[in-house]
């Protein structure tokens, strides 16, 4: 599936939810379901600091695709990370660089990606695009 398609799939999933409770319970579920990075691997160079919650991000380059692994100490942040990884991981740098994040608004999570919320998500998204640029130049 393309990034766009995955985003549409997620939008559809979120349309099922009646109110914020359902939406957040789903995000919390997502956050709980995957311990994305093992404690012992959470080294400082993977760390992206927001002042509210911390985010760890790993980006590997396998078969021309960027594979993302990420984690956070806050469960809601982690839930949103899970969504972002599902959307952006396993795509080529070009695909990532040509994509946008407007779907986040459509699933009612816009506020979490505000640069002023300081939860690390914005820096994480910036970092993902930086990796994309780095791998793109490296392999061109």
């Amino acid at each position, binding site marked *: 599936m393309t990034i766009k398609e995955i985003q549409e799939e997620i939008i559809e999933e979120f349309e099922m939810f009646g109110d914020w409770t359902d939406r957040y*319970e789903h995000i*919390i579920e997502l956050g709980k379901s995957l311990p994305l990075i093992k404690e012992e691997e959470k080294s400082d160079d993977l760390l992206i600091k927001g002042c509210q919650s911390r985010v760890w991000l790993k980006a590997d380059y396998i078969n021309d695709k960027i594979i993302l692994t990420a984690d956070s*100490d806050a*469960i*809601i*942040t982690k839930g949103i990370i899970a969504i972002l990884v599902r959307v952006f991981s396993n795509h080529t740098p070009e695909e990532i660089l040509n994509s946008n994040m407007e779907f986040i608004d459509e699933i009612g999570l816009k506020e*979490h990606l505000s640069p002023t919320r300081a939860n690390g998500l914005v820096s994480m998204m910036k970092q993902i695009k930086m990796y994309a640029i780095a791998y793109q130049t490296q392999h061109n």
Partner: protein
Amino acid sequence: MALDINRIRQDFPILNRKIRGSNLVYLDNAATSQKPKAVIDCITNYYEQYNANIHRGVHALSQEATDAYELARKKIQKFFNAKHDYEIIFTEGTTESINLVASGFTTLVKPGDEILISQMEHHSNIVPWQLLCERTGAKLVVLPMDKDGQLRIDLLDTLLTSKTKLVALTHISNGIGVINPIEEVIQKAHAVNAAVLIDGAQACGHIQPDVQALDVDFYVTSAHKMCGPTGVGILYGKEDWLNKLPPYQGGGEMIKEVTFEKTTYANLPHKFEAGTPNISGGIAFGVAIDYLNQIGFDAIAKHESNLLQYATSELKKIEGLKIYGDVPNKTALISFNIEGLHPYDVGTILDQMGIAVRTGHHCTQPIMDFFGIPGTVRASFAFYNSIEEVDALVEAVKRAKKMLS
């Protein structure tokens, strides 16, 4: 006399706000207070009726604006019981006030001298002193706190020495709400000839400090935490101290005469008030003080103490909820965490229910480091908060706990 909360709430237009369909429950008063209609109207009235640049103007508007601005200074003087109105310096807020003093001490301290602060200071009362120490070679000494969140006053006699040039201490901790025994600190500091600056940012919306009774050398606060507008605050300084400090910023207003060879500075308070100030802000600060006085600080204290006690006892019933700084002498501010839950998550869920609390380190990282936590959830109350709002908070915390666990 008990406060008529319903009537008081009508003075605050913002309290009618809905957040995602819920009534706003504003419990972030330690970050900034809300503003009564009188203060908002004062700003409108200023801009609609007599906006003009102040001092030195001979036309009517300028005179009206100047008179109103200087009247505000007098109201503030009276509020703090300062001896002279020119001991009240208008600044942008607490942070600028502290920086003004810290900058002024550059020429007054030498290598080896010490500046004593505490472990529970706001970053605004840490970083300016770190910068001062960097500039001068003075040493920053830190008065620690105990596990309840109270200052180790017992260590004062050891830490205060003839090397101590200044003690900078918060009146009330914005991180955990503890009220510090500043009288004792001031007395002991003066015994070793150290000056004392008290950071009153968290105090002045809740209690009324008497700077002469305290015998404090510098007292600083921000209007926006006491029902006044953003972008204005004050530095109170004893006349002698203010005369001792060099000017802070250069510009219009603060000079007597300017030639390229030599500039002489104006008298207090103008020496420290370079440039066009926040005129509407200063005037509205005065009106905020009128408003608080009219409500009455005794009544405020009583009501806030009720809120604190009720909220504390209700929150404590929640299993796994831990309050930091749960001591008798504190203001209506509750900083807490729920075992296993991240404060950011709790705050996010509360927000969905229209409950505004702050989460994070509250610009007091050293406190968080001390407790070994990433941050807390902080519910901070004002006199216009109601018992029903405490109930809403408690319900919401329970629900957040359930959702997140």
